[in-house]
C-alpha cells in the first residue's frame, strides 16, 4: 500500500496526502466535523442545508461559475452530509486539481448565503425530503431512529424534519456555517497523481492563511441504555410488508466493532464500507438468507451497520414474502440469532468473512476517489490507522469473539422491532 503523509497546519487544518500514480487523476476531500448529531430542534437538517448552500457561490466564484468550471475540466464533485460529518469532494484530471483546491479554500470562508438563493434551495431540500418520504424504508428508518434515541441527537434523520426545513432562516444557516466551517474543525484528504512536497506546499499556500477559528463543541448527550424491546409499526400504501430490526451497536472505534463486522458478514453477507466502487457481493449463503429467504418467509434481506463516533445501530431489513407475515419472519430471525449466541461459529466461516472483506477492499482500490475518501473518512470516527489495520483486526477475530458480541449486542432488550404494514393488509 503506498505511503501517506499526515500533518496539521498551524491553523489546525489536518491534511492527509497519498500519492497514487496509476491514472492522471487527483481526488480532494474536505471534511468538517459537523453533522445531524450537532443539531437540535427547531434546526434539524441545518447541516445538510448548509452543505447545499456551499454550492451557491462566493463573491469570487458565483454559483453557476463553480459548476461549470468543474464540469468543463472533466471533473466530478459532490458533497454528503451524515450523522457525524459533512464532506465535499472533487475528482479532477491531475493537471486541473488546482481549480478544486482554490474553490474549496474560498468556500471555507467566503460563501455568500444569498437570501434569494436560500429561498430556492429550501424548496429543493423540501423536495428531496418528499422524494425520501415516498419510500417505505425511509419511513421505517426515521421511526426507528426516533424510537432508539430519545436523548442522543442521532434521534433525527440527517435531512431533518419538514417543519424545521420550512422554518429555519438564512441567518441560522450562516451562523452554523461560520461556527463549524473553520480549519481547526476540518480534515483534508488528497490522493492521486501528485508529488507530496508540491501538493503540501500548495495546500499550505491556499489554506494556511485561513484563520483557525475556535474548535466548536459537539453536542454530547449520551443515550441511556435501552431497557426492553421497543416495537413500532407504520401503515402505508402498497401490498408489500417490511420488517426492520435495529440493535444498538458500539462506536466504530470500539474494539467490538471488528468482531461485529465478522458477525454481520456471517448473518447477512458482507457490508461494503467503501463509498465508491466496492460491494456487489451477494448474501445468498448467509445464515439469515438461508433461514428466511430460502425458507420463504422473506423475499430479500440485508444487514449492516455504519461507522459512527457514538454508538449507533445495526439494521436487519427484510422484505416479507407475500404469503407470510412480519411476525412469522421475526420468529425465524430470533431462532437464527439465538443459534449464533448458543453455538460457536466455525473457523471457516470467520475466514470466509475475512476474505470477503479483503475482496471488498481490493474493489475499492480500483479508483482514486475511493482511496482519497478513506483518508478523511476514517479520521471522522477514528483515524487513518483504523483503515490501514482494518483487515488485520478482522483477521484476529476468533469464533469465541463472535459469540461474545452476539450475546452482548443481539439481545431483544437492545433492539427496536419495526414493521411496515401495507394498508391493504392492515385493519
Amino acid at each position, binding site marked *: 500500500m503506498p505511503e501517506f503523509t499526515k500533518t496539521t497546519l498551524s491553523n489546525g487544518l489536518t491534511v492527509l496526502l497519498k500519492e497514487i500514480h*496509476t*491514472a*492522471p*487523476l487527483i481526488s480532494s476531500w474536505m471534511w468538517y466535523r459537523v453533522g445531524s448529531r450537532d443539531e437540535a430542534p427547531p434546526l434539524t437538517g441545518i447541516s445538510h442545508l448548509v452543505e447545499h448552500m456551499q*454550492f451557491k457561490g462566493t463573491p469570487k466564484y458565483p*454559483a*453557476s461559475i463553480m459548476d461549470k468550471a468543474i*464540469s*468543463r*475540466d*472533466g*471533473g*466530478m464533485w459532490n458533497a454528503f452530509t451524515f450523522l457525524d460529518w459533512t464532506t465535499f469532494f472533487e*475528482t479532477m*484530471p*491531475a*493537471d*486541473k486539481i488546482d481549480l478544486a483546491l482554490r474553490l474549496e479554500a474560498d468556500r471555507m470562508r467566503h460563501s455568500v448565503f444569498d437570501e434569494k438563493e436560500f429561498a*430556492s434551495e429550501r*424548496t*429543493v*431540500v423540501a*423536495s*428531496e425530503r*418528499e*422524494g425520501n*418520504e*415516498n419510500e*417505505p424504508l425511509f419511513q421505517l428508518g426515521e421511526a426507528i431512529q426516533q424510537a432508539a434515541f430519545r436523548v442522543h441527537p442521532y434521534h433525527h434523520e440527517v435531512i431533518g424534519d419538514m417543519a424545521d426545513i420550512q422554518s429555519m432562516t438564512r441567518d441560522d444557516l450562516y451562523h452554523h456555517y461560520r461556527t463549524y466551517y473553520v480549519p481547526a474543525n476540518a480534515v483534508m484528504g488528497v490522493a492521486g*497523481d501528485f508529488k507530496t512536497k508540491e501538493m503540501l506546499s500548495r495546500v499550505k499556500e491556499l489554506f494556511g492563511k485561513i484563520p483557525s477559528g475556535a474548535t466548536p463543541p459537539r453536542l454530547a448527550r449520551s443515550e441511556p441504555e435501552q431497557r426492553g424491546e421497543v416495537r413500532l409499526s407504520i401503515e402505508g*400504501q*402498497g401490498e*408489500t410488508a417490511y420488517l426492520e430490526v435495529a440493535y444498538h451497536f458500539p462506536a466504530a472505534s470500539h474494539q467490538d466493532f471488528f468482531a461485529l463486522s465478522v458477525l454481520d458478514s456471517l448473518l447477512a453477507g*458482507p457490508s461494503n464500507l467503501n463509498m465508491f*466502487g466496492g460491494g*456487489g*457481493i*451477494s*448474501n*445468498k*449463503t*448467509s445464515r439469515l438468507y*438461508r433461514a428466511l429467504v*430460502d425458507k420463504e418467509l422473506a*423475499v*430479500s434481506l440485508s444487514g449492516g451497520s455504519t461507522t459512527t463516533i457514538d454508538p449507533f445501530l445495526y439494521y436487519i431489513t427484510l*422484505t416479507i*414474502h*407475500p*404469503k407470510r407475515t412480519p411476525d412469522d419472519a421475526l420468529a425465524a430471525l430470533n431462532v437464527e440469532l439465538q443459534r449464533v449466541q448458543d453455538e460457536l461459529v466455525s473457523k471457516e466461516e470467520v475466514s*470466509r468473512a475475512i476474505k*470477503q*472483506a*479483503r*475482496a471488498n477492499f*481490493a*474493489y475499492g*482500490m*480500483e*479508483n482514486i476517489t475511493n482511496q482519497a475518501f478513506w483518508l478523511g473518512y476514517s479520521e471522522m470516527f477514528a483515524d487513518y490507522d483504523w483503515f490501514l489495520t482494518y483487515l488485520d483486526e478482522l483477521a484476529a477475530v476468533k469464533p469465541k469473539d463472535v459469540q461474545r458480541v452476539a450475546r452482548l449486542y443481539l439481545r431483544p432488550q437492545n433492539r427496536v422491532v419495526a414493521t411496515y404494514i401495507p394498508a391493504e393488509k392492515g385493519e
Partner: protein
Amino acid sequence: MCAQRKSSLALISSLPGPEDVYRKVLSNGITVLCRANFNSPSVSINGYINAGSLFDSDEKLGLADFTASALMRGTEKHSFDSLYNELEAVGASLGFDAGVHTTGFHGRALAEDLTLLLDLLSETLRRPIFPDAEVEKLRHQLLTGLAIRAQDTSDMADLTFDEILFQGHPYARPEDGFPETIQAITRQDLMEYHRKSFGPREMVIAVVGAVEPKKAMDATGRVLGDWENPNQVDLPVMSEPKRLDETIKRHVKIDGKSQADLIIGTNGPRRTDGDYLAAALGNSILGQFGMGGRIGDAVREKAGLAYFAYSGLSAGIGPGSWSANAGVNPANVNKATDLIVKELKRFVKSGVAKEELSDSQANFIGRLPLSLESNSGVAGALINIERYSLGLDYYRKYPDLVKSVTRSAVLEVARKYIDPDRLAIAIAGS
C-alpha cells in the same frame, strides 16, 4: 505548459487502445476482449449473449428476464446454495439481467479467483436446470418486485413513458413483465427459451483486471470455446417505432406519495447513428452539464421546484428516447412541465451557444479517465466498442470526434428528434 502537455499524453495513453486491448473471435463465434490493469488485485467480467425480451410473447412477457434470473438457481453440477457458496466464500459476484436485445452478465473477483468465476459463468450459461422449487421461489420474488414497482413513482413514470412513446412497438413493454404474465410462465417455458436462444453466436465477453491478457484470453477460451448450440435462433427483426402525431399526457395515480415523478420526452437516435454524438453533446447542454444543464438550471436552481431535474438520452441497438426527468411536489407538476417544455422549445428554436458547446466538449473529453478508471468501467467500455462496432481505437479518436461536432449539427439533431408539439408526458404520483 510542460505540465499540461505531459498530462494530455498521460490522459490519452491511460485510455484503452488497440495496443493494450486484446481481441479474439473464438471458432464458435464468441468475441473475447481483454485488458490488463494491475492497480488492484481484482478482475471484472462483463458481456452479453444475443437473447432478450424481443423473443417474449405478450402473454408471457418477462420470460427473458425470468430466465436470466433463474440461471443461477441450479445447474447440472451445483445447487443454488452451493453455486452461491463458491462465489460468496471468495468475495466474488456474478449476475445476469435481460434487456430487449441481449442478456447481459457481469461479475468480479479477486484475480486469484478468475478461473472460478469463468467456470461458473460457463456453467450457468450452458447448463442451468431450473429446479421446480427454485423457480417457484423466484416467481414470488419477481411478483414482489412487481408489487414494489407498482408503488414506485420513478418506475411507474418510466413504464408509462415507454407505453406512450413506443405504442405498438416492442420497446413499449417492460422487460420484467406484469404480474399476470409472470404467473403464466412455466418451468417448461424457461427451458425451451434457454434451449432456443442461448448460444455462443454473437456473444461478447470482456475480462479486465490484474491478469495478463493472454492468460485471461486462454482461460476464457478454455471454458467457453467448446460451447455449441445448433438450435440457437436469431432475434426477430424489429420494426421502427412510429413518431407521435401529437402530445400525449398520462397520469398514473399512486396514493400516499409526497413526490410525483415527471418524464417529458420524445424519440432519440441509435447509438450507431452518425448524429449520436451531436445528440449527446446537445443533451449535455440541455440537461446534464454542471447541475443538470439548462433544465436543471430552470427547474432546480432558479425555480427550486425539484431535487433532481435533468435530461437523458437512451441510445442503444435500436432508436431510443430523449427525455427530461424531474421529481416534484404533486402541486408543482404543471409548473415544472411548463418550464421543461419552454426549454425544449428554446433548444429547437435557437440551438446552443458557442461557449455552451465548447464547455460540454471539454467535459466529454476531460471526464474520460475518470469514467474509465475501474475495471468494470473499462469492461463496460470494451463491451460498447464491440456492441456498436466503434473500433478498438475509439477512445484514442474520441477527443477529435467530440471536437468535430458543430453548433449546426446539434441544432439539426435537436430539430430532427424534438418536436415540442409531439411529446410523451408521463406523471406518476398522488
